[in-house]
């Protein structure tokens, strides 16, 4: 007799199966068919391959790849897919999650520690998932006398703002969520929201350490926004456009970092300051003010702030790649899709499976994404690296760096760009 089911009876087993079948059929007829009817009545379904996409054929889509692939391809051109999955939130969140793990592991190696090790057997690869589960299941504690609406809203708005920033980044030719004509200005406008959210969340938690951290964050972000904007003007002067896709397209022969290295260095330093990373992590200096403006956050609120921070890190690194390293441009190293599969289909012994519409992504797109991800990961590595190397600097040193040195250097960069433009070397009608 089985230990798991001591009172096992075959007749009961059959009865339970019949019961389940009965209930499933009942639910299908009472909910499923009306739902299909509602979809057919009220939602305008697209026409794919000359036939209407009817929900009645849902099971057929699952079984037949020649029907599934066109639907998938049509779905991948929709805005929903772009926002939620590929060039938008999902892709960025995946890279952000990878960044968190790499950061912890690499920092541990730099400091001769082991880092995450036990979770997931292989080098602690599941540590991130464990942390996420912990954060989701923890209680969210709100301090007494905190300003509840702002305290709840600030992390959500933080993630939303970071996601809006991510939406402006072009990943491959044509693969961008919001291809706006004034993309770089939109970036500046979105960056301006981060200090507001920071100071409001710091104020709303009604505690001393967050408030000190918030004031520091405000000082730091506001004073480093100016050299950030000025350092990017060189690229705008040379390309004559604010659209990020066009800026990438202008770098097919050489990236702008070759001609504007000063601007790239200033932009990198301001990235470090805007992201509150060491050596500029005064807003969350853990040895002075507990965790700065994050002190009172717990549970998933803290998780949201972390997610927003790393989305922001990805977005800034990607912006560096787009503006100075040439974005998706690079030599074609992605292998072409095999011709015979497109022509004859997949042949396995006696079976011929001809699947229309097979290269789902074009070779250019995959190659562009590969180069973009490689460059972005490189920049992210250089953003993470100072954390294991440098100490934290004082706030007056930070402010004098931002206001005196970086702004001056940014003007030098602008004059270099203007010189190159008026000497006829670069820009529209230049010799290069």
């Amino acid at each position: 007799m089985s230990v798991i089911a001591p009172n096992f009876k075959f007749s009961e087993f059959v009865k339970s199966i019949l019961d389940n079948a009965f209930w499933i059929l009942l639910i299908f007829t009472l909910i499923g068919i009306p739902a299909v009817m509602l979809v057919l009545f009220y939602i305008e379904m697209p026409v794919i391959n000359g036939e209407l996409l009817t929900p009645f054929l849902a099971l057929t889509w699952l079984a037949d790849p020649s029907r599934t692939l066109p639907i998938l391809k049509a779905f991948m051109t929709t805005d929903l897919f772009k926002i939620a999955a590929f060039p938008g939130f999902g892709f960025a969140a995946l890279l952000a999650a990878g960044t968190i793990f790499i950061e912890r592991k690499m920092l541990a190696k730099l400091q001769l520690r082991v880092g995450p090790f036990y979770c997931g057997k292989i080098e602690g690869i599941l540590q991130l998932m464990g942390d996420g589960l912990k954060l989701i299941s923890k209680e969210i504690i709100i301090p007494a006398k905190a300003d509840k609406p702002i305290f709840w809203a600030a992390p959500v708005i933080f993630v939303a703002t970071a996601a809006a920033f991510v939406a402006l980044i072009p990943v491959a030719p044509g693969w961008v969520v919001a291809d706006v004509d004034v993309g770089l200005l939109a970036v500046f406008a979105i960056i301006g929201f981060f200090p507001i959210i920071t100071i409001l969340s710091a104020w709303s938690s009604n505690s001393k350490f967050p408030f000190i951290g918030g004031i520091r964050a405000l000082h730091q972000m506001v004073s480093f926004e100016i050299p950030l904007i000025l350092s990017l003007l060189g690229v705008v002067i040379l390309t004559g456009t604010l659209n990020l896709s066009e800026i990438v397209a202008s770098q097919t022969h050489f990236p702008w970092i070759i001609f504007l290295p000063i601007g790239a260095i200033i932009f990198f330093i301001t990235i470090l300051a805007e992201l509150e990373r060491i050596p500029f992590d005064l807003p969350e200096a853990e040895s002075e003010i507990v965790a700065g403006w994050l002190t009172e956050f717990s549970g998933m609120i803290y998780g949201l702030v972390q997610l927003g921070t790393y989305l922001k890190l990805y977005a800034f690194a990607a912006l560096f790649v787009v503006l100075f390293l040439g974005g998706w441009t690079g030599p074609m190293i992605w292998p072409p899709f095999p011709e015979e599969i497109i022509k004859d289909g997949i042949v396995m012994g006696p079976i011929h499976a001809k699947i229309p519409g097979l290269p789902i992504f074009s070779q250019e797109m995959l190659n562009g994404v590969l180069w973009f991800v490689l460059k972005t990961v490189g920049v992210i590595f250089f953003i993470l690296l100072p954390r294991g190397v440098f100490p934290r600097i004082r706030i007056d040193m930070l402010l004098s760096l931002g206001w005196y040195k970086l702004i001056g250097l940014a003007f030098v960069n602008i004059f270099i760009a203007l010189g190159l433009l008026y000497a006829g070397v670069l820009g529209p009608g230049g010799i290069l």
Partner: protein
Amino acid sequence: MAEAVFLALSVITIGSAIAALELRSLIYGSIALMGTLGGIAGFFLLLDSPFVAMFQLAVYVGSIAVLILFTVMLVKRELIFKKVEDKRRKFVGIALMLVFMVALGSVIMDSGIKTITTDKPAVDFRNIGADFLTYYWPALILMALILTGSITGALVLARREDVENEQRTD
């Protein structure tokens, strides 16, 4: 669609402007002010000029609202805000606002704005920039001078003679 967006933006802008004046909490008041400024940016977007809208967001929401928020948080509010609750002032203020609104509205309505056709393409911001640097260059120079003068004045006002600099500079 455009009408609905326009109505929603109007409600947001005017509602948050009233809230910015009327709310007791200064922080919420400044958040409402951000709502007003953001709503104006929405109007610019609706008018096919994203360039101005982005500058409105970057300058007004990103800088000026931050400045107001910062000031409100750091200043002891009893020192500068005395409670002057006066019904008569309020009504006079509302009446003054109505007079101004009617006057400005009649001027704008008489200026021939109704005859403007709206199916022209939006003006490219590059043309605006080119105009600023060629035909309207005195205005640009004047703006630059005024801004420089105000920054210099702010620096002079903020300077204090009685404080010794005790911070290490290296």
